[in-house]
């Protein structure tokens, strides 16, 4: 049975396919894995979403 005090938050992991720089953000509507987001500000590579996952906090 599930823990009643478990709060799961969805995160999106973005990564530049060239310099491999990563950033973790809260999931926003319309995100999906392998979606191309924008150009990387540091190397002009393509930033894509590599993972979407839930992390749980138990209170």
């Amino acid at each position, binding site marked *: *049975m*599930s823990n009643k005090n478990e709060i799961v938050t969805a995160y999106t992991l973005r990564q530049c396919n060239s310099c491999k720089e990563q950033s973790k953000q809260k*999931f926003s509507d319309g995100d*999906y894995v392998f979606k191309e987001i924008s150009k990387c500000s540091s190397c002009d590579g393509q930033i894509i979403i590599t993972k979407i996952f*839930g992390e749980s906090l138990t209170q």
Partner: protein
Amino acid sequence: MDFSNLDILDEFFGMSDDSNPFMMLIWILPIILFVFYGQRIQLIITSREIKKKMAELEQFRNDSRNDLIDYVKQKLTPNDDPTKKLDRFFDYFTIMPVDIDPNGIIPKIHHLVRSREDATRKQIKSMFSEINTLEITKVQNLLEIVTTLQLLHKVVRHLFLTAKKQNNYPLILPLQMMLPFIMEQAEALKDAIPAFKKGQPIGDGIGPLVVGEMMLDTKKQSAEFETVYSESEFDGRKLILLKAEGPYATVGRPGEATELLVEKLKPNIIIMIDAALKLEGEDTGDVAQGFGAAIGGIGTDRFKIEAVATKHDIPIFAIVVRQSVKDAITLMKKEISDQAENVRKQVYEMITDNSNPNETVLVIGVGNTLGVAQ
């Protein structure tokens, strides 16, 4: 007359004599009560527990129904009020084919399942003047959740009421034993709704996640309805990568797609990646390798893959990521998504260990690809 020797209290309540009639009555009465009414007493006690769980089940059903109706009304633009039509869908049933058929019932089950899917999709489409594929698949999955919760509630209620009606305690025992498992499944279904509404990947999507990354920067082609494949190369081997078309909430048609690709491209080995139910005591995200077609569902896709592999003498290897029922249908846990890289490495190892250069390998990412493109 001398009454000094007559002790009434001692006569009836004294503890010294075993033949005391009042004390005997106190012991015998409960025994008689339990012999004749024991089962009824147990039925009353058990009924109270079951009633509580039934109320919970009904709540899950109502909440999921309201969630779906709200989602359709607020996020999509139905032609008119969808409540009546959706309520009718929740009661849809499937009559399975006769299982004494000596010719095999798999094609019949396959036809039935596909007909049901196609009819549901058509009905959903008819509710909107404009709706994209992602939303159709999301509504289809949400409908399936509500229908299953409704069915669970109805079956539990039926078994409970039958036992009560017959005043039959043994009849309630199987229900009492099964209820914790039913509740676990019901809770998992209820918790799956947010992920489906938001289009987030679920635990079952680990197979498509692994193969989806291998498909990046390759030319994607349609293999079957809502199923895509692409060709790639690794260490001198030709790879055929197959998965459901993401980011839609679909498992695609891996059975038919495998039949088509095996006939067309003649792979030497097949590798399947899927989520698998973990045993109690195992950790979520454990990775295991094995043999055979790693694919769940009603069994028709597995049958097709096994049949075509047997016909062409192709070995099937499997890599599974262990998880619970709840993990498989709710937002993908970090422990599962963190295994994607590890599984990919194991796939490449498996390819080099079990095939030779210039051979062809079919890699299938099995599972619901919601929130995972390619």
